[in-house]
């Protein structure tokens, strides 16, 4: 609760800075503030509590994920400085929106009432719509914003309909109450339908097949930093929320529902990976890669009672790798019109460190050992096999193999092609964020227990 309040306070503070014309100080202050909030969040980790008539449930799950979100936001905010160099007048708006987005995210993982859930997801979505179309003069950005907005609102409608049906069945929005009631035998069919509709709406948010079509287009069109945010923070938030929703409201998942999850998971992995193979735009490629990762993350729903640690681990590994990758992409494509793979030619020669970081993050996403991504997949497979979904694991493995194909396409471009142009200087902040993110990722790999046992 305190975390949420502090985040909102920070957001408003940020807006105030604009008024007092202290733009230069915004980013440092926000980063420091977020670090402080991270500390606050950690302090809440061991004090599970509920606030305001069960509106917010703060516990290990919520503070664990909130911590991850805050860390990701710190990275994203740090990157903002350079990215919005030419939009100095708007920087406070950008930062404030991001912080409110974080607030929405935190609300989503700590909701105790569907109202909080719905408002959280809307804050997140609206912030994203804005950010996606924030490059106002670019037609692509506009298109991305509109596509995301239209489809996102559509999905919101579905979610809302689902919530309504749940309310119709239960007469309450409180998840604990719903969870208790859901154990009683006599339930109107509205409840499962409601759950399914909310589920589908969330599948849209995490971009799972067949609700994934928006992701590549939006990722490609949005400004790169927004893409970074979407593919890391937003995706992670959506998955965590979906997990929490399914976990808190529907203790035992029926076999039919499991089958749906399995099919969606398989479809996401396969479609995501196969489609990524022939992409030229790196952001678009990472969008498809994100779709496939969504499929992987959905696997946690199959052993829902004990996979929260795994999910946190997977999302952390994925998001950190994503941050590292995107900081390199931001660096490389700063002066370019697009993010095509040709821009990466010869990066291994021009800037070996950045190339190495991008390689490492791609390897992590591909699930090569020592990087966090490998352990994430391992734990995931472990639990899926424990829940006796071996076929799913085999398909997941085949998909991992396919994914190597396109991750390596990028690596190959960096190391085997001749550079197109001379070296461009790297802003320190990109270096710093990329290095810290990838170091954290490797640290995750070396000490998996640290995160895994949090939840």
């Amino acid at each position, binding site marked *: 609760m305190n975390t949420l309040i502090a985040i909102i306070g920070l957001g408003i503070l940020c807006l105030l800075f604009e008024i007092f014309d202290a733009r230069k100080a915004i980013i440092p202050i926000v980063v420091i503030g977020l670090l402080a909030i991270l500390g606050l969040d950690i302090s809440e980790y061991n004090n599970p509590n509920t606030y305001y008539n069960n509106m917010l449930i703060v516990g290990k799950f919520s503070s664990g994920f909130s911590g991850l979100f805050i860390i990701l936001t710190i990275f994203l905010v740090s990157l903002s400085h350079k990215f919005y160099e030419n939009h100095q007048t708007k920087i406070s708006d950008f930062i404030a929106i991001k912080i409110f987005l974080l607030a929405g995210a935190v609300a989503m993982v700590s909701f105790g009432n569907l109202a909080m859930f719905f408002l959280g997801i809307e804050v997140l979505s609206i912030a994203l719509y804005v950010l996606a179309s924030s490059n106002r003069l670019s037609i692509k950005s506009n298109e991305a914003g509109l596509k995301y907005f*239209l*489809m996102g609102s*559509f999905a919101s409608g579905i979610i809302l309909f689902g919530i309504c049906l749940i309310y119709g069945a239960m007469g309450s929005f409180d998840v604990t109450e719903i969870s208790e009631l859901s154990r009683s035998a006599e339930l109107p069919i509205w409840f*499962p339908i409601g759950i*399914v509709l909310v589920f*589908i709406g969330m599948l849209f948010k995490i971009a799972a097949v067949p609700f994934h079509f928006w992701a590549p*287009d939006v990722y490609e069109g949005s400004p790169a930093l927004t893409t970074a945010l979407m593919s890391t923070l937003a995706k992670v938030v959506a998955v965590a929320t979906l997990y929490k929703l399914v976990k808190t409201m529907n203790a035992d998942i029926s076999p039919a529902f499991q089958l*749906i999850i399995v099919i969606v998971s398989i479809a996401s992995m396969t479609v995501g990976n196969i*489609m990524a193979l*022939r992409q030229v735009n790196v952001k678009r490629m990472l969008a498809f890669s994100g779709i496939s990762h969504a499929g992987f993350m959905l696997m946690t729903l199959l052993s829902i009672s004990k996979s929260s640690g795994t999910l946190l681990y997977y999302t952390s590994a994925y998001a950190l790798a994503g941050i590292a990758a995107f900081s390199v992409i931001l660096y490389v494509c700063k002066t370019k019109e697009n993010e095509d793979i040709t821009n990466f030619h010869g990066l291994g020669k021009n800037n070996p460190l950045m190339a190495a970081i991008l390689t490492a993050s791609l390897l992590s996403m591909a699930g090569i050992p020592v990087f966090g991504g490998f352990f994430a997949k391992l734990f995931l497979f472990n639990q899926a096999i424990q829940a006796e979904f071996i076929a799913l694991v085999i398909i997941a493995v085949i998909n991992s193999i396919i994914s190597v194909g396109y991750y390596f396409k990028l690596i190959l471009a960096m190391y085997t092609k001749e550079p197109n142009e001379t070296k461009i200087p790297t802003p320190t902040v990109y270096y710093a964020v990329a290095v810290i993110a990838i170091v954290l990722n490797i640290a995750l790999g070396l000490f998996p227990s640290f995160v895994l046992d949090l939840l």
Partner: protein
Amino acid sequence: MNTNLALLLLLAPFLGFLFNIFFGKKIGKTASGVVGTLTVVLSFALTLCFFSKINIDQQPIQIQLFNWIQISNFRVDFGFLLDQLSILWLLFVTGIGSLIHLYSISYMHDDENMHKFFAYLNLFIFFMITLVIGSNLLVLFIGWEGVGLCSYLLIGFWHKNQEYNDAAKKAFIMNRIGDLGLLIGIFIIGSLFPTLDYTTLKTAIASSNNLDISMISLAAFALFIGACGKSAQIPLYTWLPDAMAGPTPVSALIHAATMVTAGIFMITRLNYVFDLAPEVQNIIAIIGAVTSLVAATIALVQTDIKKVLAYSTVSQLGLMFLALGFGAYEIAVFHVITHAFFKACLFLGSGSVIHALHGEQDMRRMGGVKKVMGITFITFLLSSLAISGIPPFSGFFSKDEILMTAFHNNIALWVIASLASLMTAFYMFRLLYLTFFKEFRGTEHQKSHLHESPALITFPLIVLAILATIGGAISLPTGSWLNGYLAPLFSKEAHEAHHFGTTEYTLMAVAVLGGIIGITIAFVKYIKQNQVPAEDAEITGFAKVLYNKYYVDEIYDAIFVKSTNVLSRFFRDYVETSLSSLVFGLGKVTNELSYQGKKLQTGSIGFYLFVFVLGLCSIVTYLFLAQ
């Protein structure tokens, strides 16, 4: 003491090899030749020492060095067994070896790589000694492969000529086919009586009462295949004539006197195994007889002096196998020894002629060298008489015993062997007449340079000719020293000297008569009628088939080499690529899927939402309507 001596005996040539490899070039040609020769002479001297020892106490000397290969149920040691057989073999290996080394000092003097030649020869002697004195089959195998290697190196000694290299390769590979058989034999023996050691094996066989005869027969057959490879028997004989590409001393040493007899040595060594497998023995006898006849017929029309001798070697080896097949090991050994003498002498003699003619090997370009090369001619004549089985030369005794044994066992084989003997006499004297008699048919240049070879060459010739003449004395029909000497080796009482009756004398007469007939025909044809073999193109009819060695090489080439190559090309061009494209194909298919899939991503919001709705409907339908 024995150990050290035996080690010295073994290692002396090896040290010679090392010395010549590392310092041979520096110390000069003659010096390296002398070093090489001396080391072998040293071995010979030590062999004599052991020979005298074993003659006194009759006890085989066993030496264990160290554990070599460990197998689950037995282990193989480096060890030596110096018994009658091995010492006998050592005697003529090192003896003839010394002579040929001596010969080579002069013969190879013009070659820039003479030190290497001696190094290889020394290495050969080393491996041959290893082969002979090894105490078990695996040490024998070291020598067995080692001599094959040296044979390879020496055949391809003039490595700039790819044809010679081909011959060398062919020899090595054909030998290896045999080696595989030998290995299989070793495996069978090793697993049946968990040992490879000769002595242990012998006691194991003797003490065992329920032997798996079929497996033993298989082992014997496999070992025989090995012997076929090394001793150039059908079907693995074709390498030997080609091996004549090497320098002549090599042909004399390796491809006539020593290495090719390794098969006979091995079979004799394991006589107790072969005695248990009579069917295999029959096969050996038949193969031996057929080989001797086939090789003899080919030799009839060859024009290359060394090729004739090579086929003659194959033919003689066939006779030895014939004897082995009848279990007459000591007779085979006897023929090995006499053959070593006269064939080495013949080769060296031919080498002397070739040397005089600056490398000319075609008999059609020779003739009449008798006049200038007296010593060579006489030694050659004596050896030819020996090989033709004319009494009292050594060949008469050994060959006669073989024929006699054959007659007693199988008339048909006797007929074949006799025919082969007759032909032997013919082609040897054809060779003699064409080379030494009549007028010289070579170029003027060659004629002007004709000369008798130097003493270093003629001395070994003389020694060998003497041995070829009197060598029969070691096993006279009336009282055989050799049989007595070798008796401890054989389990059953060695074939007693045949009771000499009318049959025996008749047979002897027939054999001698055959020899004389052969010589006479040759005389009529090449002296009286003064024929000279036709040029290659003019050879027709059956002679052409013979001249082309029954086209065996071509057949082998077509069946094995060509097909392997075709297969290889097929594998390389089709199987490899298709396997590869199978793997790539998976990638291609996925890529194609990706390409097609991209079309789905139309960019149209309507379509995206349409799929969204479809997805929603199907999930809801599945969950709530289909249940």
